[in-house]
């Protein structure tokens, strides 16, 4: 891989970061699995154990007029599994501190990270949120937290607590860091439900909550819905009987509206009427009818002829009439 050469050159001396359209390009390493993790028996290096580079594009977030934006770093192309913690660890590395003890200099680390899913990507988020369910117990498997995964090429706004830290970060991104930055989490953090089997087992569990939980969730929703419905009806009733500012009472449809069965669509009604009309009509009774029909037929014929002609031209273009060309068998 070409990137490994680049890596070496970086180590020798501090180089200026590349700038693209005003963004500083920051290489980040996805570390490869240590060889003990992979059960590759051969000596050849496989993809899983390689370090792979990812590129984050950074710049000061410029959005004049909006308050509190002065201390915001805009981060484009964050990895799909990005979490606030990932970003904090990254910033810590950028500032040259130990990733694992982020408490020591917490004031220099971002206070909040807002992820902005790529607008070109799908909005689909199929993981049911915990809040959907009422009565979910801590012990239920469905209650396990599931990490949100971003569509590829998403961005993030990283807000800092003070100007000092922010300036330091802005300064740091101007140079390619001497030690490559790793995209990682503190070893202490739990990754349960983040990726892999545990993630998908958790998602499955979320789609199959215990019947009791589902039942109570539905009950609570329906109770609230019924109550709101009743209230709306009351309000509507009141509105119907109370005169408005000009002293008029608006005439509106009664309460039963909208609850009626699915009526026939107006199209269908018209169709039925037309059908009736057609049955009454006499065919070929008047001379003009015969003429009209003939004319219509002629027009049909001509139209079809035109279409056929076009088709022949098209078929010819596709060399369709070569009986002995391209036969199989």
């Amino acid at each position, binding site marked *: 891989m070409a990137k490994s050469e680049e890596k070496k050159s970086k180590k020798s001396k501090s180089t200026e970061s590349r700038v693209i359209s005003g963004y500083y390009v920051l290489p980040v390493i996805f570390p490869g699995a240590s060889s003990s993790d992979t059960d590759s028996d051969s000596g050849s290096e496989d*993809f899983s154990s390689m370090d792979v580079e990812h590129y984050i594009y950074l710049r000061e977030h410029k959005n004049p007029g909006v308050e509190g934006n002065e201390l915001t770093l805009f981060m484009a192309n964050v990895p799909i599994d990005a979490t606030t913690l990932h970003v904090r660890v990254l910033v810590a590395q950028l500032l040259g501190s130990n990733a694992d003890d982020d408490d020591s200099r917490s004031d220099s680390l971002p206070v909040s990270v807002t992820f902005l899913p790529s607008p070109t990507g799908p909005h689909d988020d199929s993981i049911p949120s915990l809040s959907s369910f009422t009565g979910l117990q801590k012990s239920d498997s469905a209650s396990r937290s599931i990490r949100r995964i971003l*569509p590829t090429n998403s961005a993030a706004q990283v807000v800092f607590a003070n100007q000092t830290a922010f300036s330091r970060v802005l300064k740091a991104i101007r140079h390619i860091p001497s030690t490559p930055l790793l995209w990682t989490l503190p070893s202490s953090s739990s990754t349960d439900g983040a990726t892999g089997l545990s993630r998908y087992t958790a998602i499955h569990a979320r789609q199959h909550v215990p019947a009791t939980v589902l039942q109570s969730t539905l009950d609570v929703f329906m109770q609230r819905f019924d109550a709101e419905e009743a209230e709306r009806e009351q309000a509507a009733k009141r509105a119907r009987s109370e005169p408005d500012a000009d002293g008029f009472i608006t005439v509106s449809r009664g309460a039963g509206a909208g609850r009626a069965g699915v009526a026939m669509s107006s199209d269908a009604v018209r169709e039925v009427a037309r059908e009736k009309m057609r049955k009454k009509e006499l065919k070929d009774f008047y001379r003009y009818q015969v003429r009209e029909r003939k*004319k219509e037929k002629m027009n049909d014929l001509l139209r079809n002829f035109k279409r056929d002609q076009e088709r022949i031209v098209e078929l010819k273009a596709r060399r369709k009439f070569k009986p002995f060309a391209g036969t199989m068998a």
Partner: protein
Amino acid sequence: MAKRKREEQLAGEAVADKNGSANDHEEDEYESDRFDSDGGASEDGDVEEALVGENGDKPAKKQHGKAKATHLADDLRNLQEAVQLYKSNIFKMEIDELLKELKVDENKTKSVDRVLHKIKDLIDQIPATEEELLLADAEKLIAESGITIPFPDPKPPKEAQYRFSYTTPSDFNLVGCYALKTMIKSPDRFAIDVVVDMPRALFSEKDMLNYRYFHKRAFYLAYIAAAFKESSEEKFGLSYEFLDGDHLRPVLRLDSLKDGNEYDFHGAKCYIRIIPGIARDTFPFAKLSPTRNCVRYASVSTQQQPLRPTPYYNSSILSDMQHFENTVFINRAIKSSDGFRDAVKLGDIWLRQRGFAPSMIGFGATEWALLMASLLIGGGAKGSKILASGFSNYQLFKATLGYISSTDLANAPIVINGGSLGFDSEVFGGRPVLVQNDLNLNVLYRMSSAAYSKLRHEAFLTVKELDDVNGDHFDSVFLEKVDSVIYQSDLTICAKFPTEDKSYRDLGRVFNPSYYGHFCDRVYDVLKTGLGERAELITVRANENQRFDLDTRKPSAAGESIFTVGLVLNPEFSQRLIIHGPSAEDKQASAAFRKFWGRKSELRRFKDGSIIESVVWEPHQERSVVTQIVMFLLERHVGETILKGLYVVGDGLSKLFQQDRDLGETIEANAIATYQRNLDDFDLLRKMLIDIDDLPLKVSSILPASERLRYASVRTPTEFSVSSADDFSNVVIELESSAKWPNDLKALQHSKAAFLLAIGQSLRRIDPMIVTDVGLDGDLDRIENFAYLSVLMPSGFGFRVRLHTEREMALLRNYKPDKDLGLRVVRKLERSAMLAARHTTEFATLCHRYPFLSATVRRVKKWLASHYLSGHIDEITAEMLTLAAFLKPFPWTPPASAYAGFLRTLYFLAQWDWRSEPLILDVDHSMTIADIQSIRDKFRLQRSNDPEFSQTALFIAINYDMSGVMWTQPNPTKVIASRMTALARASCEALKGSSGSGGLVFGGEADEFRKLFVSPLEDFDFVLYLAKIPRTENAYPPPVESLSDPAELYFKELQTVFDGVAVFFRNKLRKDVITGIWDPRVLAERSWKVYLGYSTQPAYKSVNKDATPTVKANVSGMVREMERLGGDMVQRVAVRGV
């Protein structure tokens, strides 16, 4: 005159449609196929009237003037005629184009005319033999030129006393297709036939007997050949060839050398045949009547039996008198009928595409033309005409096919001139008999009954196809080569010819001078008797050399040693295990039956009390009943040795399927039974659901909506093996209508979930052994959340019940916050619920109508899955693709074996030009022409709106979805569809077999076919190898709620996260890998922006600061992201180029 012609043509269409007689129908009112027309000549006036009306009505047209109007009227009349005379305008236009394509360029044949003159000069200059030669001298004389006399078998006896000589031909004629200008351009090149009449003086009346005529003829031919060789060694490629497969009559073939000499006629795409003939007064006709004997053998005459007739032999001599007359006869027809010449060409191409060459079956363009010319003057009941001279070329063609298919010339011989048959047609032993002249010559004497039944079969299929107005069948009638035995047959068996056949003695030889022809006929007769109604068509073919070198007497046998038995089966009967013979009381028939079946025959008593001879077969793991019968019969009637070297074509493929654990049950009968148990369980569930009475609303309908409930799942359903979502059968239920459903989408969906929970409880109350669980497709907050009820029945099958309400559909259609989303969800619901239910019912019915549809669709799905396409081509689309081979079998019959069905579907996929052709499936012939037209219009509209196929690639319309895109939008995409086509082509290519096998797949072992089911992983940009997910083997019943499918969820999430960046593939059946290819658009370098849609890295060359920096996709970075997401589920990763 013109009017008269028109009437005939109109009547002709009626004939073509009804196969009646032209004479009777002249006054019939004609109804056109495609347009509602009053027909009849009387309408001409109305047409113009209508037009004048039009001109008057539309001011824009007024200025065109009267002249223009009549011109237009003429055009219109032509148009209308075309519609009536051909099936449709397009068909006429297509035929016109085809004929243009087939036309031989006259400029190119000019060189031939020069050559023909030279040939005549050459022959005129050949000196006569100095004396009449005895056999030995004759052979010596010819041998001097280094060639051999092509004596037919049997050779003249050594002691033959008759003498051979040569004198200048008494006549020299150009005959056949070149003389008649009916030849077509084809890769085989056409033949220019030159007949040289051997002078009468060379023969005595006795020469008719015992091959003497043929021996003298052979000498005459060799003498000419020798002269040509001496004088023009460098000018032509010379060889002998049997005249249209008649081994008694070799001819001299002259091919152009492509060296630019004065005799070079290579550009003319033809070759020249020099055919020795005789004048009609050479021998008395009467003595050559088919019932007469002309070959006398000592062995026969010693017995006190009457001499057996020698019809083939006699006809062969008579034919040599007839060359010129035939040409004259056809020419008369050409003169009388404008469409005739083109109809001959249409017939010629039709025959060629079906592999009918005169040498193979004794029926070619010449016979076709003779038949057609005959039908112009007779052929019908009481000598009435079948064809009228005013017919269009298409009418002549179709009516002739109709005649072939409806008239059995073997049992009802025809004499065209109206005279009676001068002989007993029995002598031809089942061959068709058509006599059209005073010679009593059976024009079809070379056609075996096997070949004749094939011709009629093909004619029948084509007529049926042409009668089907709903499709454009032009391609399969004229353009496609359809004679491939592997696609045509449901079962193909190859074996080696035995070196010796005891039945082929002197008399056998007289009846059929070709040993291979004789043997194939015999095999045909045995199989015909043995298979009966199991087989609709039996073909036995051998590749026989027709050409041979001048220094050989006959073609070498090398390369001919294999014969092929192709069977088109009748699926209704082919699987039956018992053959019922005659009743035991019928002694004679019983004896014959026992003789035929040998030890296999046994006397059995049946339930109805009858005692009859019968043969019983056992169901066999590897061999179908028909295969067993064929092998038994060949062994019994040909000899044990035949089984050595015998193989069933594609046997390896069948074996492969047999070993395939993905398919579950592989024996067809058992498979259907397994599905039946699943269906029985469904019925049980249906009853339970109907019986539920403790709910506010009753369940009103329960519809199956699963591939497992329509015989179409790859794996057959198995009891007590429920381990993933695929093992549940989808069921759609509806509740009785109620006004109480909430009018709010979310509330409605919540109520539905609550209902499902309640139904689950009720079911458990009915039978406590039932296990239920309510699951959700997604978050309750989203409108795409759908609840379903999983039910595990005590008998071991699982069902997934979804509740369908019209109210929900209506609310979704008007979903205010996001109209598009609402409509998308409606579509999804329609697909998965009501339409899936409709499809399930229809497909199950079709599986009953076509016994091998189920087996085929399962194998096709297996093929799609093996190529990682199953994630993109959903199950219903796959089923529709399979239906094509059954519902649109033309030019073949619907497949009657899983093997044939599978191959035919691959063939269809390889051939289907989905970019420009919709697939229209009419399951029950209920579509009208207007329907078809509207589907085609929709297709055209769709394509013109989306010329890049970015929304829809495949367009498949079926009776219950005429929109054509319900199941194919947005998947499969163009990329996937192209991939499918490419893979199908590759598979078909692989099936063709290695060269030398004559285009046949060898029987082979399973391993040879494995490659059909392997997509090389190197084709993909990256491969994620998944770890095996440990499955805890639970006791039954398993906890339904925990039956998760993490690999599937992972796959779906990858698709979501990398939407538009990469296309992912997986094998639904295996779940061992997820592979992907990058969208080519992301691989290009481009300038950077914040949301480009995929992860990028700076492109290298732009380090130079002046240039605008560009970026490119960070391929390995993204694969690593996928890997990180998969975590412990991903075992290994391969990235192309890394």
